[in-house]
């Protein structure tokens, strides 16, 4: 290295909008993610895959024996396992995305100090957010692929439409991940993080995951229809048997809006999240 002169000490400003937050280098964060996966025990990577599979085996086969066949989207008669499988995939997409964008971020922020070191480079907080969301979605993609494979093996897939379960599951995950990070920016302690579980669990249980929405009185149905998970469950269920309606578009639009609003929200909270 040659001697630094005064001229070397003059920097030019970057006039792009949001240049303080985004350096167009999220790929470096993604590269790191893959590097970690490569040097990691693969069991850690696949452990999250088993949760929905266990649910499917216990509820689908166990409860399914009691319940028998049920009425699916568009009035089709399907097995109980085929009824809950796509819903479980939506739930697992939600859980994975929320875990990665809340607990994982919170931990790396306050204990791993990973972001602290990243932020002292020319990365902006938005690069980190994008990179981390990408890695979360990539993992979700692998799980969805595996779960759809299990459905096929169990004979629960009857239409080529079911292939769309995988990208749709990634979309559902994106919706939750985009909000998760923004919400984490408000969290200061572990106790506050428990609020997330408090919201997630009822959403999982009541979003028509295990039985149709029609079992509820109307006002409760309306409430459930506001939950993002319900839209994910319905969408996945329709895709799994290739039966679509005008409601399909509503579910899709719900997620598009959720992702856009979530990313905007997260971008606005980046300074609070990373630059205290």
């Amino acid at each position, binding site marked *: 290295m040659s001697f630094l002169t005064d001229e070397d*000490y003059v920097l030019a400003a970057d006039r792009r909008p949001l240049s303080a937050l985004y350096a167009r280098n999220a790929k470096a964060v993604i590269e790191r993610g893959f590097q970690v996966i490569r040097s990691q025990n693969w069991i850690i990577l696949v452990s999250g895959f088993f949760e929905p599979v266990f649910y499917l085996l216990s509820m689908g086969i166990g409860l399914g024996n009691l319940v028998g066949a049920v009425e699916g989207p568009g009035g089709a008669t399907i097995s109980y396992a085929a009824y809950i499988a796509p819903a479980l995939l939506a739930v697992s997409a939600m859980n994975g995305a929320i875990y990665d964008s809340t607990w994982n971020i919170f931990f790396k922020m306050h204990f791993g100090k990973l972001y602290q070191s990243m932020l*002292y480079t020319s990365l902006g907080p938005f690069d980190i957010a994008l990179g981390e969301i990408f890695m979360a979605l990539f993992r979700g993609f692998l799980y969805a692929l595996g779960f759809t494979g299990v459905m096929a093996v169990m004979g629960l897939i009857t239409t080529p439409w079911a292939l769309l379960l995988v990208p749709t599951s990634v979309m559902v995950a994106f919706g939750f991940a985009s909000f998760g990070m923004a919400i984490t920016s408000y969290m200061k302690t572990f106790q506050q993080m428990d609020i997330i579980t408090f919201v997630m669990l009822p959403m999982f249980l009541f979003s028509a995951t295990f039985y149709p929405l029609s079992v509820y009185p109307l006002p409760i149905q309306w409430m459930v229809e506001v939950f993002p998970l319900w839209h994910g469950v319905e969408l996945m269920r329709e895709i799994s048997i290739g039966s679509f309606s005008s409601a399909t578009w509503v579910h899709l639009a719900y997620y598009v809006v959720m992702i856009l609003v979530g990313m905007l929200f997260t971008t606005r909270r980046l300074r609070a999240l990373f630059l205290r």
Partner: protein
Amino acid sequence: MAGDAELRRTVISARDLVKTYGDFNAVDGISFDVPAGESFGLLGPNGAGKSTTMRMIGGVTQRTSGRLDIMGLDPESQGPEVRAHLGVVPQQDNLDEELRVRDNLIVYGRYFGLPRAYLMRRADELLAFAQLEDKAKARVDSLSGGMKRRLTIARSLINDPKILLLDEPTTGLDPQARHVLWDRLFRLKEQGVTLVLTTHYMDEAEQLCDRLIVVDKGKIMAEGSPAALIREHSSREVLEVRFGTDRNAAVAPRLDGAGDRIEVLPDRVLVYTEDGEGSLEQIRARGLHPITSLVRRASLEDVFLRLTGRSLVE
């Protein structure tokens, strides 16, 4: 050094920096300028606001008020651009524990958008610089404290920074490792790299800093070169005499006039004086015979303790 430093461009300019957490002022109106190539120190007890100031320079903590100019840019609105030319050694090592030693350097370089082929070479150079060649493939958590520190410092150089921020760089290092590090920092300084470091090791500040500010409770208490600060806030020499713990305080009044200033500590009495041996003669002439006596040069430590007080800071 101070002579030609004045001719050089100012690369860090801070004006009335304030950082408030709730109703606590971590940094309370600090102003200073650092010219290119200078080695600038921030000295102060724990909690004085040194690290917060460093974080504001890097643009990773938002300041409450005040102006900051780093190489012509505001680090808050031009963070990535400014940090592309900064190297940072934080107080606590924050190495990537999920990556191996060499990958820590390469991946970190990628955060600056540097090409991988270049980084492979640069990583090997830096491993040599940090004397960690044989640890290239090791896991980070298997390194000793000193090795981790050296790796953190090597990592901070991956982007050939123009300004290097070092937050207590040698805390926790053994004497050998400290001297190795000082030598490395001297070499960087010779290449024209601007160094900004916080420390509470006075010998380190005297060794490394052209100029420094003493910070306490978020405010600047004094500013100058180490030698000038010693001249201004201390005497040339310090005579330390011990009469025994229970007698020190009682004897102290009888030492009046033996030096410019007398300070009574529980275990010894300090006499600040221009001529330590002369003062000791005077004391003996008064019929006082200390159990032990020591004449030493005044150090930054004396300045520091005088300015920031002796009470324990948590």
